[in-house]
Structures are given as C-alpha cells and as structure tokens.
C-alpha cells in the first residue's frame, strides 16, 4: 500500500480532492500492475491473488470518493471478476480478460 499523504497535502473540497488523487493515481496503478505481474508469475497463488484483489478493491472504493467515478467503475468491473476467484468459487480468468480490464482502469484515470 502507498505511503500516507504528507501533512497538509490533502484538503477537503472537490477540486483539491481531485488534484490530490490525480497525483496519487499513477502510483496506485503501478502497484496494481506489479500485483498483476506477481499473480501471473506465481500462477495465481492465493497470496498474490488476494493482494491483487485488495488493491483493485481499494481503488474501486477510493475513486469516486475523490471525484473519479469512472476509475471506481472500471476497478469495480475487475474486482467483480476477481472476488469469486479469491473466494475459491471460480477459476482464474484468462490473462487477456484481466489485461483488458486493467487497460480500462488506465483509460478511466
């Protein structure tokens, strides 16, 4: 997870929140990409899949809070795909499917 925001770097109000999150988004996306790389490298190991899901889930919850509803929606689409996998009720999706949804998240930001 990313470092906490620096003291005084965050203000309430729609414009400051958007600016703040816009600056944070590249790092969050990089973490998600790294987690996806780990998932593929470990053949969907439980730990890697949970971490990937958690990061996508967090982005889904954060986007709209900071004025990026398209980011939330795009992340939610991927989270819906991952949730049954980490719960053990579905098999892992194809890499291409995940890749397309990740691309959707990148475009949304």
């Amino acid at each position, binding site marked *: *997870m990313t470092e906490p925001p620096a003291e005084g770097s965050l203000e*309430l109000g729609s414009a400051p*929140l958007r600016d703040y999150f816009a600056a*944070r988004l590249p790092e969050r996306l990089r973490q998600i990409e790294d987690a996806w790389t780990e998932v593929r490298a470990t053949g969907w190991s439980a730990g890697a899949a949970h971490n990937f899901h958690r990061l996508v889930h967090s982005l889904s919850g954060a986007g709209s*809070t900071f004025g990026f509803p398209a980011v939330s929606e795009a992340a939610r689409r991927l989270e819906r795909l991952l949730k049954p996998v980490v719960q053990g009720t579905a098999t892992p999706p194809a890499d291409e499917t995940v890749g397309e949804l990740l691309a959707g998240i990148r475009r949304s930001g």
Partner: protein
Amino acid sequence: MKDPSLRRILFVEDDPDIQAVARMALEAVGGFTVLACASGSEALSRLGDFAPDLVLLDVVMPGMDGPATLAALRQIPACRDLPVVFMTSRVDAQDVAAYRDLGVGDVIAKPFDPMALSDQVHSVWKSMRARVDAARQCGV
C-alpha cells in the same frame, strides 16, 4: 440532529488515502475525535487507551480483515456491545446480510462523499440506538 453521545470514533482503514480523507472529514466537518488505525491488530492494541463510542471498520484489509477484527473485538468483555459499523464497497444485499449476522450495527457504503460522511455516521448511530432502545423495551 447530532447526538452528543457520539464523540470518539476509532477508524480502521488500510488505504492511506481513504484513511486521510475520512479522518479529515470526520474531524473537520463532524467535529469528532478520531483515532485512525491502519490495521485490525493496531486497532486492537490502541483501543483501550482511546475508549471509542463507535468503531468504523474497513472490511477488506491485509492480515486481519474487518470480520476477523470484529470477532477479536467481541472477545474483549468491555467491547462486547461496542457499536461497530463496516465501511465497504461490498454492499450487495447478500454481503450486508452476512455482516449483520456477524453483529455489525450498520454499513456505510464506499465510495462516500467526504462532506456527507459525518451526517451518515450520525444517521447510522441514531438507527443503532433506536434499535437498542426498542430491544430494551421488548425485554430482549
């Protein structure tokens, strides 16, 4: 209507951005005293000194998640009846029913509007207290 019996909130959230904005909103807009913790284990270790009126608890966290943290809280005699509200983006009817079975007082959905969060907290607090009062009157 704000209830003066709700002043101290323990907020457990692993996402630093969400933690920061929610804490700021609860303090600046709601006037609450907030202790923010990044994990369930941190919350459990700092709980005693803070003595919260309410716990706002994220569900999906690394290590000890929301349900596991709630279960651990309920093992502490002084926290058996401590009001706990989950804050989560998992708010399907099935999920919410499962949270209630765990003993959660209510659920606040993510994403949330920072400027409206304090009002949401007061609203769920009022609902929870009303349910407790009704149960008392029924002798439950």
